[in-house]
């Protein structure tokens, strides 16, 4: 037993030194959970929360903190992640232990269908306060990732002074043929953004936007490609991917809109027939830990642990004016706006 504690303590120390952040505190019952997880050897995580690099980094961090428990990630888009889990459930296959999708309605449905195992992570105490309301009261899912939809632009064509300041600026005639957006049928981020815009400005907002002939991609991340190619020069884009691309040296910048950046909070849950339920619990704890949030920051994501500072150059979500539809509005709104969107934009 001591040797394991030593290893854990050592791993924690190494990570802490490497990250230079505050010391991670062990949560109540960690050693016993770790022991049980080790017997299960490995866990599989279906995730749509971030890009594959971040998913890989989070898995590696977990393996470093808890040697002997292997972490396999399957990174896909939200719809595919859900589709795969549904396939598994239908076929009675136990493969996935933790599921992380970005589509709120998936959780409601999974809860209804009894696919999830309740667990309230102890580390949720350190969750950013603004995200708490997204946790399931019955403990079936917990917020573990966050991001923003905001205004992005190509700095080699648009000066900071010219750049749009609020969402309604995107419908200005000067951006005709120059705006890029995603499609709510493909992206949960875009779906939430569309629901929020409709809530703020009515469907009229999109009718006006259509007159400016925006370029519509699939994923919200497609806006990054469009801006880099200068095919579009302003966009409703994601914070993390845009800032990551900017960090490489691409001519991109973000604007936190005056009328509010749209906050996306995404949850994770443990699957009921998880082949590794204890490793899954340990992993949920890890996703909320300081170490994990530090890795997210290194990957230009927003931290969910309130003791971890956001990356240099980005504002912390607490400082930004954020807006967000409620869970019920999203669930009811997304199928509705998909239809409206198809009517207005023809696809």
């Amino acid at each position, binding site marked *: 037993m001591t040797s394991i504690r030593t290893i854990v303590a050592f791993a924690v120390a190494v990570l802490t030194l490497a990250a230079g952040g505050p010391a991670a505190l062990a949560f109540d019952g960690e050693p016993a959970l770790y022991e049980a997880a080790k017997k299960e050897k490995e866990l*599989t995580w279906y995730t749509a929360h971030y*890009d*594959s*690099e971040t998913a*890989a980094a989070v898995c590696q961090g977990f393996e470093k903190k808890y040697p002997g428990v292997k972490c*396999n*990630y*399957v*990174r*896909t*888009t939200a*719809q*595919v992640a*859900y*589709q*795969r889990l*549904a*396939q598994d459930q239908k*076929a009675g*296959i136990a*493969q996935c232990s933790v599921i992380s999708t970005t*589509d709120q*309605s*998936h959780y409601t*449905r999974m809860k209804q269908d009894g696919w999830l195992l309740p667990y309230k992570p102890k580390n949720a105490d350190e969750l950013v306060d603004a995200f708490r309301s997204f946790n399931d009261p019955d403990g079936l899912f917990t917020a573990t990732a966050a991001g923003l939809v905001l205004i992005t632009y*190509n700095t*080699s064509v648009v000066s900071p002074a010219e750049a749009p300041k609020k969402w309604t600026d995107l419908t200005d005639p000067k951006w005709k*043929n*120059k705006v890029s957006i995603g499609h709510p*049928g*493909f992206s949960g981020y875009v779906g939430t953004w569309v629901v929020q815009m409709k809530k703020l400005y009515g469907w009229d907002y999109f009718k006006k936007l259509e007159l400016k002939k925006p*370029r*519509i*991609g*699939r*994923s919200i*991340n*497609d*806006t990054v*490609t469009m*801006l*880099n*190619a*200068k*095919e*579009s020069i302003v966009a409703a884009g*994601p914070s993390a*991917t*845009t800032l*990551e*691309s900017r960090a*490489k*040296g*691409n*001519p991109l910048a973000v604007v936190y809109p005056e009328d509010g950046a749209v906050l996306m909070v995404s949850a994770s849950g443990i699957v009921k027939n998880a082949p590794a339920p204890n490793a899954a619990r340990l992993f949920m704890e890890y996703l909320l830990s300081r170490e994990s949030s530090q890795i997210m920051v290194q990957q230009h994501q927003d931290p969910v642990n309130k003791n971890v500072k956001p990356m240099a150059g980005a504002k912390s979500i607490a400082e930004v004016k954020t807006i967000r539809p409620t869970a019920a509005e999203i669930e009811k709104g997304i199928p509705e706006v*998909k239809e409206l969107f*198809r009517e207005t*934009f*023809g*696809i």
Partner: protein
Amino acid sequence: MRERSFVVWLLLIALLLLLVINPLARLLWASFQHPATGAFTLANYVAAYGRWRHVEALINSLVIGLAVAALCTVFGVPMAWAVSRTDMPGKGLVWAAVLGTFIMPNYLGAVAWILLAGPNAGWLNRAYTALTTAETGPFNVYSKTGLVLVIACYSFPYMFVFTRSALDLISSEMEDAASTLGAGALRTTLRVTLPLALPAILGAFIVEFLESIALFGAPALIALPARFQVMTTTLWQMFEFPPRVQEAAAYAMPLLLVTVFLFWLQYRIIARKGYVALTGKGGERRLVRLGPWRWALLGYCLLVTSLSFFLPMLVVLQAAFARAWGRGFAWDNVTLRNLRFVLFDQTATRAATLNTFVYAAAASVIALTLALAIAYIVARRLVPLGRALTYVAMAPFVIPGIVLAIGFYAAYTTKPLVLYGTAWILILAFATRFLPIAYTNSDAALRSINPEMEDAARILGAGRLLSLRRIVAPLLKRGLAGAFILVFIPATRELSSAIFLYTTGTQVLSVLLFDKSDEGNFEVLSSMGLILVVVTVALVLVGFRMVGRDFLLRRTAT
């Protein structure tokens, strides 16, 4: 007395039925099933075809499919003729560029084309506005024309290879006969040489048509921003939450009828004429001397391959070696970091690379063995109702990969055959998906062999299997090497079925690439695409070496 070989045929037919009919039957069944109760219903068909939007998408797909197949013929046939039958210079370069085109995944090519012909900032448009006084360039990839061009660019190699292998087999005797009777080179080519290759060209035309209908990658990247839908993007919507698998199955069903119709048509057109060219009675092939025209022909070949390979590759290379590709060309923007990340830091890449090529090779062997056997059974009428097998072998092509994957999933996650989670489900899915290519090739190759040669062997006492091994197989060797490559390459880049069937440990490169395509990380996407292209080219060249030099550039008459 029945031959021993009869049992072999029956076993192979059983395998074909298992591979193709099992998943398709599950789909057919699903298309009549009520989503909740499982009771028989026609409601799925009403839902699938009751909306004008869905019908319109289907019409778009059919129109685009026809246009693509026609454009592929315009691209592929002259190039195949030039490489096979003329003294055009630079054949090695042209062939290598066609190979490169074929290896490049269409979704990578589509991204490159967005950068080349984007209406606002595409390189071609910027070059045009720089050279002329015009304010905007004429190119717009975001249009139906743009989509047709991009799809044709990445599927014309089928046409090229099918036509070329047919032309390679036609001896000059018939051309000589025509010229003796006073026909010029052009007339001989149009009236004798090309008509002899007609079965191959028609087969390729159908393959091009079906391939472009079932494609998801390029349409998703181009059709949506261009504001129109095709069948596969509509199907994708049916897999949105909550997924409507039954409706998707119903939506895909009529395409099977289209396939049946096309092959019936092909049969009608070519059945009444003889196309036997390889008679075993010698026959020499000489190249047509083109004089100055050979340079014009080379120019045409290079124009087509620039569109399909050289220009897009330039874009991919720029991004793969750029720190930040949005900055464009600059020396301080060059880095090996992306390649290093892909090769060394991202542990998934190596496993996925190995999986990709092992699965593709295994799938090719399975598909080819099966296809050849079935084609032989059909061609030599070894069992009753043999021709129905053609439809079975061709059916997978028209089922979009996503739908086929769902059928596979349904078929192989329940007893008696649980394959989900193993490599076999991917290998069998790839083998099934590309069976039609293997079949069309085997069929065309077999048609060109006169059965008299086998009959001679059998009269001399050889059994069916022996004559196959000693007579047919050696004659087919080169054609089959080509067919292997034709199955192997698309299997290395197959995406749509892989994405639903892979599990941890069985990831392939196409899935990693696709994940990158919606992560907005074009530098890394290009690096991985580059690796896929380079490794495949290397493997294919090694393959050529093993088959013999003359496969690449024929030096001797066979």
